């Protein structure tokens, strides 16, 4: 069963094609990774799927609905959630509040109720807080809940972003380099977390530079080079593919 289907997606910036005709599918509980050398167009592809950029061509289909170029907040309503390569944390808010922001769709109600601090408003906020604290526990940040997010270490912020994205109870989770800049221990923690999330039935689309991690946890790998898909398949197939080796190590290695 396909949950997210990418069909011939492409975009150009100033006449230069950043991504060309890329297609693949993601099913619930599956971890699909997009890999490729720097500048291959991975993040651009992510930004098109998550509605940040308008694709020049192609379609994004989520749960049978064409959601191409739909605004991110509407995609969130349809069950898509994401993290960012260069962290997008609400710096001056507490760790708990950052996670609560992920509950926006579940906890927001009439402004007037919030203004008057009506019981309905407090009830919504309380329910969200319980969920948020449980999520923080899951990513190992429960003791930092009241700290200002800006004061956390890089690895903790990465996990906070995942907690915030999980707060939406997404069907599809897009993770843009969740382990970038993390040390080996932190990477392994994030590794486990992602596998756990996938096991709960969430479809995961991952962009990651850490090859070991990608090979370890992916069910399916899509390889991009110069904006085009050059290979796809399970980790074993992809790692043997001559085109992939050429893209990563240079053509002479592949020939030799």
């Amino acid at each position, binding site marked *: 069963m396909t949950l997210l289907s990418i069909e011939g997606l492409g975009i150009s910036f100033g006449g230069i094609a950043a991504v060309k005709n890329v297609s693949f599918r993601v099913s619930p509980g599956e971890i699909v990774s997009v890999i490729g050398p720097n500048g291959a167009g991975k993040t651009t592809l992510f930004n098109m799927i*998550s509605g940040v950029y308008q694709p020049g061509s192609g379609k994004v289909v989520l749960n049978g609905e064409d959601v191409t170029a739909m605004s991110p*907040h509407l995609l969130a309503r349809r069950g898509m*959630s994401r993290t960012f390569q260069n962290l997008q944390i609400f710096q001056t808010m507490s760790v708990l*509040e950052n996670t609560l922001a992920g509950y*926006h769709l579940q906890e927001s109600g009439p402004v007037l109720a919030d203004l008057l601090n009506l019981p309905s408003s407090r009830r919504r906020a309380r329910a969200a807080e319980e969920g948020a604290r449980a999520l923080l526990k899951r990513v190992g940040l429960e003791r930092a809940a009241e700290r200002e997010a800006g004061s956390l270490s890089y690895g903790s912020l990465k996990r906070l972003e995942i907690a915030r994205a999980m707060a939406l109870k997404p069907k599809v989770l897009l993770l843009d380099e969740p382990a970038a800049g993390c040390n080996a221990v932190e990477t392994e923690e994030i590794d486990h977390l992602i596998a756990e999330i996938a096991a709960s039935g969430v479809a995961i689309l991952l962009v990651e530079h850490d090859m070991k991690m990608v090979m370890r946890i992916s069910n399916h790998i899509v390889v991009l080079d110069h904006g085009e898909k050059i290979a796809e398949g399970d980790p074993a197939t992809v790692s043997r593919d001559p085109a992939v080796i050429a893209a990563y190590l240079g053509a002479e290695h592949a020939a030799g």
Partner: protein
Amino acid sequence: MRLSVKSATLLTLLAFVVVAPLFFPSSFYYRVGALIFVNGLAVTGMVILTGWAGQISLGHAGFAGIGAYACALAPEHLGLHPALAVLLGAVISAVLAWLVGRPILRLKGYYLGVASLGFGILVSMVLNNERDLTRGPDGIDVADLGLRGLLKDAGLDLSNGQFWYFFCGFSLMLGAWFALNIFNSPTGRALRALHGSEIAARTVGIDVPRLKLQAFVISAVYASVAGSLLALQNKFITPDVAGFMHSVEMVTMAVLGGVSSVIGAIFGAAVLTLLPQVLTVFAEYEQLVLGLIMVLVMIFLREGVVPSFLRKFRGNEA
């Protein structure tokens, strides 16, 4: 136990409203106090709009003008009670803010600053030039609220200055309570989130233009009610209330005291309302001193006076 920001702010305000009169050298200071509270109410709206939602308005005096002139015109022409005129002004301000903000806030960036600037100037021009209705730059009389008379009948005899001092003081506390309710509510979190990172806010499902619009409308109502209170206590109002300088003053007060903190912004309002009274001796240099203070605050206390000092205080504590 540590007090929440909400309780701490409201208790500070209550203590000030009640205790300050004990130190007034003359009854004139009731009037200055009432002015501080009115300005404090207007800047509390600025905290929601600028401090939390991250949007700038350079035309909020326009809404104050609408609130003020609603109290001048509605009782005379529509036969409304002045209290209902306050409400009418607030509704008109809210609708106009919605109309101005809706197309503008879809755009990213500081377009609201420019659009609101234009709006404020427009209101000011109408108030100055529609002489048949507004009597123009000379100003217009405003009906009595009538509440002081009611209190007198009930056995509470306050002088005019005292009445407006306490009435504005409690209005400010009510306004601060509303704002602080928002701060910790889902709406407030969403506002602060979109200020922190608009793209991340959108990906968690926050309808960014809609939230910004809500903040703009709410802050417009604050300014409108503040304008109404000013007109009602003076029983007279001129178009200056809607002037560009008044808009700038509101922003300056909020930024000076701390635009992301309700008590900070109110402190800013207090300082900038008091200074001209204190500086009357060398009135020629008033603008110079104000300018200098602003520059120094922006260099050394960028978050505003109150948040900067609170941070320092807490830093030492730890």
